[in-house]
């Protein structure tokens, strides 16, 4: 009886062993490909010394509202004004922040262009005249990651009637160098 039992156990062990040796496995590989490309991003920020952007600060679609402006008398904080015998200029600091990612570009070029024609008033960005005829180069060596103040200035002739609303857009384009 004992022999029978032992044989039986042995046979069972053998069977277990043969089952364990049988390899029923599968393997696979996934090749992942991505192409990283450099990119830059432009946003407008309020400059501490200028008029606070009334909307869109931190985005690429902001609004700079000068409010009521005049050649003489009180002027809002943040507006720099100069007056000649025939016109006056109001100016506000505006920060442009261009950031880069995955780019070896050392700096960027910035252009600006008026959205629509203005035959009466004179516009400048960073001291450079801008019109709607062509994009004007504002800087060729913009620094990434830092707020750069490019003041926006508008020169208004004395002949402009009181109550006139002046409104326009300036399209900025930053291009990695």
């Amino acid at each position, binding site marked *: 009886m004992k022999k029978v039992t032992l044989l039986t156990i042995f046979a069972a062990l053998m069977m277990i062993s043969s089952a364990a040796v049988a390899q029923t496995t599968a393997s696979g590989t996934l090749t992942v490909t991505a192409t990283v490309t450099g990119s830059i991003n432009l946003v407008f920020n309020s400059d501490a010394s200028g008029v606070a952007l009334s909307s869109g600060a931190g985005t690429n679609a902001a609004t700079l509202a000068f409010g009521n402006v005049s050649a003489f008398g009180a002027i809002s904080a943040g507006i720099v004004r100069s007056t000649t015998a025939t016109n006056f200029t109001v100016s506000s600091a505006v920060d442009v922040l261009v950031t880069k990612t995955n780019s070896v570009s050392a700096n960027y070029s910035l252009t600006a262009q008026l959205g629509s024609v203005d035959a009466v008033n004179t516009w400048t960005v960073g001291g450079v005249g801008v019109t709607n005829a062509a994009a004007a180069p504002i800087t060729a060596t913009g620094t990434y990651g830092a707020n750069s103040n490019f003041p926006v200035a508008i020169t208004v002739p004395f002949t*402009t009637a009181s109550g006139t609303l002046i409104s326009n857009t300036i399209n900025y384009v930053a291009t990695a160098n």
Partner: protein
Amino acid sequence: MSCNFKFGGMKALLAIGGLLCVLASNATAQSSSGQLTITMNVQSSITLVFQNNPSVGTPGFCPLTNGGTNNVGLDMGTAAFPGNFHTATCVNYTHLTAADYQVSSAFDVVVTKANSSSPNYRLAAQISTPPPANVKWLLNNVTLTNTGFTALDAADAFGARITKTLQVQVKNTVAAQVLQETITFLATAN
């Protein structure tokens, strides 16, 4: 061998081409744009400044300190009733009566307008404090007070020099003292 070389050349060309492609794709202008909208509302305004008269330095036309601004000084020196005494050679000194003297000096007021259809402006003035008894401050013979603006002109032309003469009339009983007034001019567009 030749074939192998050619194949190797092709590989090299392909590799260079690929690199150029990668570089080119990397060099593709990375750009970003933004749009800033600007608005403002133009308001009419006027400004007033005091100018030295072209005759400055001659009797009756003392130089202004800080001329060309809207906050100037006019020093008429020292004067006394007896002996027509006055230290400033640029003032006009006269005895009005047997008991009053007057020291005067003229200057120009220029008011400029911008973005305004106003044809002219009116001018008024006011002194800052009540003068001592028997002392009068006048502009072009119009006595000024500290209780309100006194009208000087009704329709002065913008941009033109308007000559005003500041007069101080002192009775001989007035004790020695510094006579000082801040005279505020108010121009209002018509």
